């Protein structure tokens, strides 16, 4: 007896000393920290709001942007694959600043023999070199690409001073261009057009075995860089990957081509009667009333006839484009041209496709219809498409966008046959590139800095547009789980979305698929379509024909929805973390009216006896020592204290509507992943019925590793699944169910394989 008391005493002593030691150790090593909550507001990451980019995410009352107008005469020399241009640039300084110099983009210089672009890519020798690759890498004579600037003159014909740094040209002004003033000057240039099939590139020409060329011409003239209050001059070099930042303006362009060429470009053709035959012109006008199906402007027969010849005469196409950020065109003898009208609240927009016979029958079946569908779906998500036409050009191996016009690959085999994959790829690329008219051609973000702002946002709307065009070919079910492979990859090879475009691993997954998947999760799961769509539209309308930044997007989405999404932007856009939420433990509880140990402790803390506790019910878990078999299966209503409360407080009408839970579960969720996400839980009951509950992401705000929730139920639960539809990009599904499933994907497949 004595001995045992001593043992107990010593035990207590040991316990208290060890407890004391623990506390002491804790206080001596624990250090403070900054706010490391995943729900911390983004104020430190986002730029301070100002009168141009406001805290709401809208343009402010002092918002301004420069305007640049171009008048150009272009000659396309098909014989020698050269292009010549004379341009008059009118630069409007709408900023509050005086400018000492202007920066002009010379994108073609990325292909000049002394371009540094190939030099920035590291890597040892390849395992094998095809003869073509070997000669190109070690022996080849470099392509004589790049701009040849013949002169830069002021309006009086006097030479202006300039300096070229790779793909950027600084034009020095004899006196600063004052705020509100405009400056006119002329540049004369030419360059050798690249065979983009051999040299790669977003523009150039594709040679055909029949001797014809198909030109897709872009980044083809010296273009002004953007000057604003975000980057100053956006004059980061063009390394070939990160795209463009450009000012809006009006374009008056004449293009001289061989007489037998067919051409379309940015803007409206001002002299259709001069460039089309009489019949073609009639069809060109008639097409404006064809709202139900595409009709030919240039027929396959006419194209076939044209590609046999080689005219030495020329003709000049005159274009005018209002409020565009760039100009591109495509020209060839081989072009078939079809057209369909699209109605936007009484305004007619033309959907056009130009393609060689090699694109058929795929192109005549789908291209123009896809263009029309894309314009409609994107307009519903943003604003009515404001330009007069959208044109899809068939150019092999391309996928590149310009205002009103884009180049798209996708051709059937030589036998004219194609499979579903080719068709799907072609519809996908056309939807994507036509969609770029909205992002970034109109909602004009800085592509050089933020690839995701045009590619990611565009890839998101693309998902909706493709689904509308063919829901079987483009099911929504693959999103957002398509991104889990990338997000669960080696962290050394992942960069946050918020990284400049030249410095990211896995360009496609980083800047296209991941932001698109993120917006998909926001729309479908976190915000819901109603809130999301309104906020997204708000962003698009606010920044239509302007230069938004990431902060303007993040802020607008919150401003228009009353949802604090800083945790989502922080996790998904600013980090490389991924989502992994699981169910760790499920405990079953029963109801009793007998105070539990926990209740006794509570009473003690208040210095009262158990009898003094208010009449209460208690939940007891099956593994607790308070549990006795007699409370198993008892309903809460079996206890008189609850019954009398119900009698006194609920009317006869209310009583039948009272829920009467019989089973109580404590669900313990674990979160090995870095990201916070809503917890979506599916409960399957003994009778086979199912129910869902979604806990907001904010459930993680005080504990980033583990949370528990009590779930009352009138039926016994047989199975619990976290994120049953895979809508949160959970990278690890092995902890998503209770009872734990032991079979992985491989074993499942193997089992079905043997069965089948």
């Amino acid at each position, binding site marked *: 007896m004595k001995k045992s008391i001593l043992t107990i005493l010593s035990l207590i002593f040991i316990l208290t000393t060890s407890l004391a030691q623990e506390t002491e150790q804790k206080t001596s090593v624990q250090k403070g920290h900054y706010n490391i909550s995943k729900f911390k507001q983004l104020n430190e990451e986002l730029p301070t709001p100002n009168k141009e980019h406001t805290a709401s995410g809208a343009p402010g009352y002092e918002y301004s942007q420069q305007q640049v107008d171009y008048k150009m005469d272009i000659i396309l020399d098909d014989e020698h694959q050269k292009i010549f241009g004379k341009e008059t640039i009118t630069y409007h300084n709408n900023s509050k600043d005086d400018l000492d110099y202007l920066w002009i983009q010379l994108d073609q210089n990325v292909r000049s023999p002394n371009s540094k672009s190939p030099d920035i890519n590291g*890597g*040892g*020798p*390849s*395992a*094998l070199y*095809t003869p073509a*690759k070997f000669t190109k890498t070690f022996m080849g004579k470099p392509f004589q690409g790049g701009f040849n600037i013949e002169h830069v003159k002021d309006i009086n014909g006097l030479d202006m001073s300039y300096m070229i740094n790779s793909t950027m040209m600084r034009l020095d002004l004899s006196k600063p261009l004052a705020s509100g003033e405009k400056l006119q000057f002329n540049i004369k240039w030419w360059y050798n057009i690249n065979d*983009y099939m051999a040299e*790669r*590139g*977003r523009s150039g020409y594709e040679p055909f075995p029949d001797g014809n060329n198909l030109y897709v011409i872009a980044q083809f003239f010296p273009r002004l860089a953007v000057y604003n209050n975000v980057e100053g001059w956006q004059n980061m070099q063009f390394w070939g990957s990160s*795209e463009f930042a450009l000012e809006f303006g009006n374009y008056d362009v004449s293009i001289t081509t061989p007489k037998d060429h067919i051409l379309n470009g940015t803007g409206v053709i001002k002299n259709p009667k001069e460039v089309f035959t009489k019949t073609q012109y009639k069809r060109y006008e008639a097409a404006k009333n064809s709202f139900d199906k595409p009709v030919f402007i240039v027929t396959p027969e006419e194209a076939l006839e044209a590609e046999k010849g080689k005219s030495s005469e020329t003709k000049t196409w005159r274009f005018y484009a209002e409020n565009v950020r760039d100009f591109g065109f495509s020209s060839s003898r081989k072009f078939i041209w079809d057209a369909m009208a699209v109605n936007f609240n009484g305004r007619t927009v033309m959907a056009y496709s130009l393609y060689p016979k090699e694109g058929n029958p795929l192109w005549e079946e789908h291209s123009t219809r896809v263009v029309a569908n894309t314009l409609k779906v994107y307009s519903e998500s943003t604003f009515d498409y404001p330009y007069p036409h959208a044109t899809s050009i068939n150019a*092999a*191996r*391309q*996928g*590149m*966008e310009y205002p009103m016009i884009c180049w798209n*690959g*996708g*051709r059937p085999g030589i036998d004219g046959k194609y*499979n*579903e*994959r*080719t068709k*799907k*790829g072609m519809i*996908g*690329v056309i939807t*994507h*590139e036509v969609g770029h008219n909205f992002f970034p051609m109109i909602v004009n973000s800085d592509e050089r800095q933020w690839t995701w702002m045009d*590619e990611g946002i565009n*890839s998101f709307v693309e998902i909706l547009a493709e689904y509308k065009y063919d829901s079987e070919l483009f099911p929504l079910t*693959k999103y957002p789980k398509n991104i889990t*492979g990338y997000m669960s*990859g*080696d962290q050394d*090879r992942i960069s946050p979305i918020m990284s400049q475009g030249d410095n990211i691993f*896995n*360009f*496609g997954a980083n800047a*296209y698929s991941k932001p698109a998947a993120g917006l998909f999760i926001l729309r479908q799961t976190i915000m819901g379509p109603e809130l999301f769509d309104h906020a997204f539209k708000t962003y698009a309308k606010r920044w239509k024909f302007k230069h938004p930044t990431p902060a303007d997007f993040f802020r607008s989405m919150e401003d228009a929805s009353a949802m604090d999404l800083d945790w989502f932007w922080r996790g998904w856009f600013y980090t490389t973390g991924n989502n992994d939420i699981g169910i760790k433990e499920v405990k079953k509880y029963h109801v009793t009216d007998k105070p539990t140990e926990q209740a006794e402790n509570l009473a003690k803390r208040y210095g009262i006896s158990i009898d003094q506790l208010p009449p209460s019910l208690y939940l007891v878990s099956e593994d607790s020592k308070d549990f006795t078999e007699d409370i198993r299966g008892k309903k809460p209503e079996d206890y008189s204290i609850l019954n009398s409360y119900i009698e006194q407080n609920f009317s006869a009408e209310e009583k039948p509507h009272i829920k009467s839970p019989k089973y109580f579960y404590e669900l313990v969720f674990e979160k090995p992943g870095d990201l916070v996400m809503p917890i979506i839980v599916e409960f399957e009951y003994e009778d086979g019925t199912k129910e869902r509950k979604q806990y907001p992401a904010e459930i993680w705000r005080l504990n980033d590793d583990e949370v528990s929730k009590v779930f009352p139920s009138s039926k016994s639960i047989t199975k619990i699944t976290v994120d049953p539809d895979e809508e949160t990009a959970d990278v690890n599904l092995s902890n998503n169910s209770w009872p734990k499933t032991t079979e*992985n*994907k*491989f*074993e499942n*497949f*193997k089992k079905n*394989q043997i069965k089948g």
Partner: protein
Amino acid sequence: MLIPLLAFTMHKYYISLCEVEYIEEKQSIQIITGLFIDDLELALSKLNNTKINIATNKEPSNIDEYFKEYLSNNLKLTINSKKVEFNYIGREYDDNLVRFYLEVTNVKKLESIEITNTCLLKYFEDQQNIIKLKVKNYHKTFYLDNNNTKGVLNFQK
């Protein structure tokens, strides 16, 4: 610009993902390897000098024979310093991907593993074959390409 996984886009990825997991209780090495169908179609067609369609109605009825041969020539495993053969469990098509399920059985203990993956390297100079290896709680990723076709992991101390 377009990057999605399309044969005709200039900046398309050339990537494959091969997930390898050792399950000790089952003495099994489970492999799931995914390749882009159009890339594999091109490789098989060139190799066999005839157009081979995959996942279309023109797919040859003995397509699995082509797959088995290609995989056994291009995915090589050495376990505990011994070359081993895998069982071809099957394959599934998922959108533009084909996923192969392969298994090495009777691996009582895993001391070392060496994986050589030359899938598609011959036809696509930019091809990258990613191997994700999982042994219990240990994860390792190899990035294989034309410069480096082999990943080795040694568990012996």
